[in-house]
């Protein structure tokens, strides 16, 4: 009798974990902006590769604009696409998405500063290394992250492994004289990085669409 009574109660429970997960991860799921930023980054690398004067001079003056675009584009997409179409959620305070934004911006800036410092050091000391150091470094970081989490049910370690291997591969292109170090650091590096952002963005958006119901605003009038 008790079991029958419980059966009446249990099936009407909504999926708590799923509802909480979607709500908490809503900001992270808004990936179209990340993808668009990724397109800009990949385009920056591609122009550097394809347009010879850009490769030698570098499109470095455009870098601040690129960083600004990476920050602004996702916010504009959230405001003009996600908010009207999927709604608005204010995360539980303190807002973790702001921490993520500041953390990722800080990490990116630190990476750029390090890149310039190491470049200066190599140039000043006339050091010759056969590989492209930054792609190699990022490759090692991504592969290490992936190996530390392989076997878990998340997909990110596998994605991290693929990206890491891509960075390692382009870092070694100058060793085999397939591309110059300049082509890798000013071109291929940004192409791989941008492509990764595009893929991550689309995956996040797909997860959002899968987890939310279709727009049923018209049902009432049906």
């Amino acid at each position: 009798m008790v079991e029958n009574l419980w059966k009446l109660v249990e099936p009407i429970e909504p999926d708590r974990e799923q509802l909480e997960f979607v709500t908490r991860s809503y900001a992270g799921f808004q990936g179209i902006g990340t993808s668009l930023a990724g397109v800009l980054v990949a385009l920056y690398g591609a122009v550097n590769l394809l347009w010879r004067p850009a490769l030698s001079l570098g499109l470095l003056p455009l870098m601040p604009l690129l960083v600004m675009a990476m920050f602004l584009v996702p916010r504009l997409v959230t405001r003009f696409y996600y908010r009207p179409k999927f709604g608005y959620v204010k995360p539980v305070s303190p807002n973790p998405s702001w921490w993520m934004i500041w953390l990722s911006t800080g990490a990116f800036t630190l990476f750029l500063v390090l890149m310039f410092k190491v470049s200066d050091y190599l140039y000043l000391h006339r050091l010759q290394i056969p590989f492209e150091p930054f792609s190699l470094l990022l490759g090692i970081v991504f592969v290490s992250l992936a190996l530390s989490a392989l076997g878990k049910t998340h997909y990110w370690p596998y994605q991290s492994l693929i990206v890491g291997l891509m960075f390692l591969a382009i870092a070694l292109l100058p060793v085999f004289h397939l591309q110059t170090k300049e082509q890798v650091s000013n071109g291929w590096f940004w192409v791989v990085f941008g492509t990764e952002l595009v893929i991550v963005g689309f995956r996040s958006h797909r997860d959002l669409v899968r987890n939310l119901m279709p727009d049923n605003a018209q049902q009432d009038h049906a």
Partner: protein
Amino acid sequence: MPNLPDQINGLDRVIHEPARLAILTVLSACDEADFTFLLRVTGLTNGNLSTHLSRLEEAKLVGIRKQFVQKRPQTIAYLTDHGRKQVEEHWRQLKELRKQASAVQRR
């Protein structure tokens, strides 16, 4: 400790309704959410969601705020302090009931 049927009967009927519990669960995972997000995440229709939100507001579990964003009206819902406690307590009760029900089934 009350027995299982009593505990099941003792569940708060305002909260223990699938759509309302879904709304409350979503709101418990954020500070506030708007009507559009609640529609998309729960799969309810406009009318159903409005009715459930009004019921929850009457029970003082949820607060409703209306505002304009880019000249468009926006309805924001949030859990009251009382609502937040009640939702947590409700999920705790359900977990306890589930545990007891599986113990009864094993006997």
